[in-house]
């Protein structure tokens, strides 16, 4: 099951040129870029691990691609996303965040029903991938 989180997630996967164009848009808006990765696809898992350092003062998307490629090399089977942070006073939030790499196979989620008193049922979702320990979740 294809994870749809962040911007552009209903579009086909981005090529490097697409990513560069989006990064250029961030740089034009003076948004520092950061790269994050994770192997826990749960939608409430908002704090992914930061790759290297946030990138301030970059002029060209090539710098971001350089780091992104290093990250892809280190975590070939993780989710990787690129964030653009708008630091302007009054906003100070992530302005753009999109997935640039996903595992080859995404097993998806199962629904879990928890029986409660008075016939109440509580629902939750559970990612199949998280059954395995961190770092080994998407290895085949």
């Amino acid at each position, binding site marked *: 099951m294809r994870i749809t989180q962040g911007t552009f997630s209903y579009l086909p996967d981005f090529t490097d040129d697409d990513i560069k164009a989006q990064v250029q848009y961030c740089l034009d808006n003076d948004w520092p870029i950061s790269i994050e990765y994770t192997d826990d696809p749960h939608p409430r898992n908002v704090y992914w691990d930061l790759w*290297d*350092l946030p*990138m301030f*003062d*970059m*002029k*060209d*998307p*090539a*710098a971001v691609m*350089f*780091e992104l490629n290093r990250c892809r090399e280190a975590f070939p089977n993780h989710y990787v996303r690129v964030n653009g942070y708008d630091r302007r006073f009054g906003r100070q939030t992530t302005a753009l965040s999109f997935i640039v790499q996903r595992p080859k196979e995404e097993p998806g989620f199962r629904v879990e029903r928890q029986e409660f008193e008075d016939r109440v049922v509580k629902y939750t979702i559970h990612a199949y991938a998280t059954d395995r320990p961190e770092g080994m979740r998407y290895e085949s």
Partner: protein
Amino acid sequence: MSLEEVTVEKTSIDLDEVYRESNIQPILDELDRDLVGLAPVKTRIREIASLLLIARLREQSGLSTERPTLHMCFTGRPGTGKTTVAVRMAKILHHLRYVRKGHLVVATRDDLVGQYVGHTAPKTKEIVKKAMGGVLFIDEAYYLYRPENERDYGQEAIEMLLQVMENQRDDLVVILAGYKERMDTFFQSNPGFRSRIAHHIDFPDFSLNELMEIAELMLSQQMYSFDDESRKVFAEYLALRVQQPLFANARSVRNAIDRAKLRQAGRLIRQGGVVSREELARIDADDIRQSRVFQGGITTADSNPANETPGRLLS
């Protein structure tokens, strides 16, 4: 017609038109106008610009796809305009679309080499990333290599730079700068650098006349002027200054002018009363004559080398 529209199908290309479209002529003209002297440097820059333009056209005509090596080495004594030319070079490369952004990032050893194990790589990487899409200008590059200390972290920065110069050729251009002799020694001990650099440009020292011209240019830019006497005295000053230690060409001229302006201001305040517009703009002979250069001159011991230091070791 832009450079990109010159398509492969075309068998002939109007060179004049492409040249005009590339917009490098104004930059070259500006280079000629703003920089006094440096004739050999200007010729080389023109040659390189033509070479790059032709290479671009060849590529578009399907003749060769190999991107020319663009890394350069500027050698010359302090104050001969290396940084200024590097800024122009970045613009030229940008107009010819060899770099995407055309900005210049100036770095020295301090910016590249870390202080403890594991500090160098991220530091170098950070600077390299900032320079991507533009030009990385490494001033006094030979300080990166310290043969006397085999555990010096400079070597790590050098290796990283070499790797970047090879693998990220499309993303940035590296210009190394420094004294000619030391640069030569540096290349001897780091042959990898020499082979990756295509253009070596040597910046000659300025002649006295050129220095005088530079002084006049600087003054007119700041809306000051010499009168006949002070012009003569300044020429004498330069003749003496050139022979004294720590002479840094155009930079020394600028400092001398700054000090003359200081003395002029002091003189005007002391004098008080009504001051004419012409007096505010004029540098008097006395403002220059008070310089230490005329009183036996600057010695290394008591001078203030803040801006004139030819090498880091002396600062």
